[in-house]
């Protein structure tokens, strides 16, 4: 499996000496392009730490991470392969948060187009890309609206479009359905499945939302910093 995301022996230790805490212990994961996997675990199990390591926000203590066929982190070879983690996050990792966290002073189109613009693409090209994604997510009719004028579901779809804007090989979704009712949660998961398949993006969904757990075909359970892979129900929601 060359594309997608691969994690080998990833560990993260906070602090040192007697007060050291091992938040992640030898985590191994492998997600193929177009695949949506669940990352499930109780509070304090290490989900967020893993997400932050994958998102190049904090540095792991040990291990190796490969993204889209390219090693991005290898503790045996000095850690991060690039010094510009900001560009790594911008170009190769998409983020979806529990709340949409859209930029309130940008309209819907510019919220999505901001990422390609930050990557140096022309405004016109960036906005065209944004509109294409908004169309795919069925919110193109709200392209000129301000985030505050959107419903919760629309906001979450715009945030998914933003995550896809730079065509990253991986999207990290941090409890994207937590504030939603069953119907809306299923709708969001349906969209994530569609987008993963359409754009060949690997999506990791961190959740403890019982409503959506049966949807995943593969689930990583995390407890005390260790992951265990198991097959999910893979319930069809299309």
């Amino acid at each position, binding site marked *: 499996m060359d594309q997608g995301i691969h994690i080998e022996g990833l560990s993260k230790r906070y602090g040192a000496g007697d007060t050291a805490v091992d938040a992640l212990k030898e985590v191994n994961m492998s997600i193929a392009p177009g695949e949506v996997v669940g990352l499930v675990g109780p509070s304090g199990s290490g989900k967020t730490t893993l997400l932050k390591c994958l998102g190049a926000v904090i540095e792991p203590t040990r291990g190796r991470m490969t993204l889209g066929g390219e090693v991005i982190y290898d503790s045996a070879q000095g850690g991060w392969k690039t010094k510009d983690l900001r560009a790594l*996050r911008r170009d190769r990792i998409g983020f979806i948060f529990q709340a949409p966290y859209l930029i309130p002073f*940008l309209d819907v189109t510019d919220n999505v187009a901001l990422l390609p*613009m930050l990557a140096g693409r022309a405004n016109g090209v960036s906005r065209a890309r944004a509109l294409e994604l908004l169309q795919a997510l069925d919110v193109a009719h709200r392209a000129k609206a301000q985030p505050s004028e959107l419903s919760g579901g629309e906001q979450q779809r715009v945030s998914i479009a933003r995550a896809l804007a730079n065509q990253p090989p991986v999207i990290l979704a941090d409890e994207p359905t937590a504030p939603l009712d069953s119907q809306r949660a299923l709708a969001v998961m349906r969209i994530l499945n569609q987008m993963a398949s359409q754009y060949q993006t690997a999506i990791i969904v961190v959740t403890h939302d019982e409503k959506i757990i049966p949807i995943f075909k593969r689930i990583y359970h995390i407890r005390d910093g260790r992951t265990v892979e198991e097959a999910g129900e893979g319930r069809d929601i299309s």
Partner: protein
Amino acid sequence: MISLAGRDILHSWGKFVLTGIGLGLLIGATLTMAGVYRGMVDDAQVLLTNSGADIWVVQKDTQGPYAEASNIRDDVYRSVLGLPGVAQAANVTYLTMQVLHGARESRSMVVGFEPGQPGEPTYLVAGRRLLRGHYEAIADVKAGFRLGERIRIRRHDYEVVGLTQRTVSSGGDPMVFIPLKDAQEAQFLKDNDAIITDRARTAANPALNRPGVPGLLDAVNAAQTVNRSVNAVLVKVGAGSTAETVAQEIRRWKHLQAYTRVQMEEILVAKLIATSAKQIGMFLAILTVVSAAIVAFIIYTMTLGKIREIAVLKLIGTRNSSIAGMILQQALGLGLIGFVVGKISATLWAPAFPKYVLLESGDALRAFIVVMLVCTLASTLAIRAALKVDPAEAIGG
């Protein structure tokens, strides 16, 4: 690339503009304070220009007639006129007092002058010059008198026959011009009761009321009531002479103090209004610090209100410089709105001030630069806070 600062300002323009207006009123107050100082300096210069003199001859060892009391004999001008280089010399009196106008009072500087001589108001906005030797007055419009109205100075009534503009004392009091003789009487002549008492006292003094010296008592009494004093002699220098040369001659031969225009300006600006200037300087410094604190507080609060958005922006790859630029542009935008509001409000309310407020373009330009610098400095606190935001804050946990 999208202007993040511009979009943020447009998004919350109401809050931004209201804050800018608040800041602007403070900047307006600052500009006005500077204008008050400029007005004082200008008043001093106008006072000197209106007198039409090149040299002020005053009592020895004094800095009169504006900064200190000066008293010289009214025949001094004759001997000054005899000096080489002197084209004109004229007596003048200055007395700041309450001038009665019906039931109202106006604080004014009463100027006694001789028509056609230095000290006479050069330009009238209404009415005519003094034609009679007594009981006519020309007043600055700021005094609030109208043509034909009667005003009371000491024991006599005067008819306002002419109006001038921008003729004020160094303290900003409007001037009222009356004939020299009347002004001397107003300033130096005692009231009737005091004269009667003085005469009785003189008559009771055997040294001054000698039976064998007829006419002595009358002479002493006359000397007590006749006034021969003025405050200064204004000198106009003739062609081919310099004010400094003539002033030196007066100091050397007449045992009087003579000031040139430059020296008189120095007395008025550097000495007379020096304390006021320092006072205003302190106000300006405090207002600048307060403005800086307000801008810093506003920008800091606005930034703290966007911490989550800043964390998201950083997480999705926005450069620190773009975030710092956004905050800086907002601070500068606030400063710009504040400056425009401040300049407009200062221009609108300046004429309502009782003393002349002179708003100079140079001061406005300097204020603009200071406002921009202050806003830049004030934004550093917010920029520091924004740059400290960890992109990880966007991810829960």
